[in-house]
């Protein structure tokens, strides 16, 4: 480039040679810019996901002098006969089956309650959102205290029923432990999805609501025929994200119960961590991960399909 050459008015319309050089330059620079992200995604996402598939069919251990061997379906055969694993699948499904509808419903209720212009909207939204910015580890620790036999929750139950009902030892009783974790998890997560629902509600044109209220339509009818159909995209998103996070249940269990009592709160991810990390059986943990992966995939696809068909 010399000063004598006037700048080209539009690089894209230049002669063939210049065009392809510019294109090639653009390509090289783009690859350079995307390079770090591509490399990191390759090393920390693509390869580990591939490894989950590959290692599940081997005898790999976390720290082992002998190299991993191919063992076919042995890990899966062991899984099928592992009662604790089967219990963890059951618990994970039970947890998700309750948390998904309850949390989605509660969050929608909250969103409807604070959607609108009145004094203090912001205050209410902020307070309902506080559990979301509190870490799950801290939430689990505080609730462990609340759930004690002589803890706050049972004191409240005692006061409200004038001593007629005695609360159980929530986390140490196999019949209440999972329910206790469900309740706390919904409490922690509802605010997050309230915000998502609110964002969805705000995409519904106000004229629709105005038209409906001028026509004297009842509030329920308005919800049924204006609000609900308008939330279709949001609905799919909320259901899938809650389902995936419900299936990933780990922190609460690890902090509060370590899977107990009597395996009543053990979950898929908890079992994967136990075998893959504590017992160093990477291959077995990979097999669990693979089952988990397939379950998440199936449930997401089914939900996407169902929510699509209804409307």
């Amino acid at each position, binding site marked *: 480039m010399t000063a004598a050459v006037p700048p080209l008015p539009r690089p894209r319309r230049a002669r063939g040679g210049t065009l392809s050089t510019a294109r090639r330059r653009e390509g090289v620079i783009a690859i350079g810019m995307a390079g*770090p992200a591509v490399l990191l995604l390759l090393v920390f996402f693509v390869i580990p996901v591939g490894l989950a598939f590959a290692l599940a069919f081997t005898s790999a251990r976390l720290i082992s002098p002998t190299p991993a061997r191919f063992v076919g379906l042995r890990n899966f055969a062991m899984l099928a006969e592992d009662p604790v694993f089967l219990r963890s699948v059951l618990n994970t499904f039970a947890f998700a089956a309750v948390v998904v509808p309850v949390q989605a419903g509660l969050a929608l209720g909250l969103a409807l309650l604070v959607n609108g212009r009145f004094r203090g909207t912001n205050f209410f939204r902020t307070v309902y959102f506080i559990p979301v910015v509190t870490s799950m580890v801290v939430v689990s620790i505080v609730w462990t205290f609340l759930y004690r036999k002589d803890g706050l929750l049972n004191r409240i139950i005692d006061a409200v029923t004038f001593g007629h009902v005695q609360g159980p030892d929530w986390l140490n009783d196999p019949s209440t432990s999972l329910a206790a974790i469900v309740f706390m998890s919904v409490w922690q997560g509802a605010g997050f999805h309230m915000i998502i629902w609110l964002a969805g509600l705000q*995409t519904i044109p106000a004229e629709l609501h105005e038209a409906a209220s001028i026509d004297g339509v009842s509030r329920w009818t308005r919800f049924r025929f204006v609000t609900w159909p308008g939330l279709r995209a949001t609905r799919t998103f909320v259901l899938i994200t809650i389902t995936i996070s419900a299936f990933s249940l780990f922190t609460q269990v*690890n902090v509060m119960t370590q899977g107990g009592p009597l395996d009543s709160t053990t979950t898929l991810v908890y079992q994967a961590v136990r075998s893959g990390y504590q017992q160093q059986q*990477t291959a077995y943990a990979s097999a669990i991960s693979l089952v988990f992966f397939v379950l998440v995939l199936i449930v997401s696809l089914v939900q996407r399909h169902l929510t699509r068909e209804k409307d």
Partner: protein
Amino acid sequence: MTTESPRSAPPSARRGLPGHALRVVLVLFFSFPVVFMLVSSFKPDQQIFGDLGSPRAFLPVGSLSLENYTAVFDRVPAVRFLLNSVGVSAVTIVLGILVNSLAAFALSRMRWPGRKLLLTVVIATLIVPFETFALPLVWWVSKLPWLELNGFSLTLTEGWLDTYRVQVLPFVANAFSIFLFHQYFQSIPKELDEAALIDGAGWFGIYRRIVMPLSGPAIATVAILTFLPAWNSYLWPLMVVQDEELRPVMVGIQYFFQLNVSWGQIMAYSSMITVPVLALFLAFQRSFINSIASSGVKG
């Protein structure tokens, strides 16, 4: 309620008292554990249990002191854990903004081979939860090599366990951040690029001087959405960090909790790692809420 006129009153005002009562009850429901935690952190253990039967449990009354806090600092290197988490979060945020915005820039404004492939991988990572490949990833990072500079000689070491980098690097490239930047960059007119190219600017100059300065809201959103999981990270450091020197706050409190020494101290430690985040949230409320909302709009 039957003679309401829709013109004079906005719909929400008509919900009136029952709705408002419900909202207030919900305020108590969503705040009581956090209030209890904060209040108890200043009370001696005996009083925490003594106050349980009355509303005093939620009130800063009785003998209040900072003793629980000083005891936590005496027992464990809590300052070290806090600094570890601040450092890991900060580096993850800065690298995340840089790496993901560069990738999004290349994706949204430039033509190059491999564009489609990257988009596919990005979309795949959005639906695969971290927990599905966390265990194979532990095995993988225990084998990864690293170049270490010892004085003047470079040595090749194996294994990333017990390092800071293993807490940062897996979380830098983030599909959702790329996605957010990509969406935002699309809204910045491409004519600006062409004009700049004619003026002799390079692609990197366009990124640095035109696109990034216009992307404040996207940067804030990515920063917040990177900060929360980084600060709260638990499962991952639990498995890959044994060294107490490198331990982040959430793993630190888990070990402290297992010692089961004193509830007052546990509440003090809990408050200590929660209040900074709450303060940030209250200060940047609008950005926090918008970040979360934006995560839903384009799921």
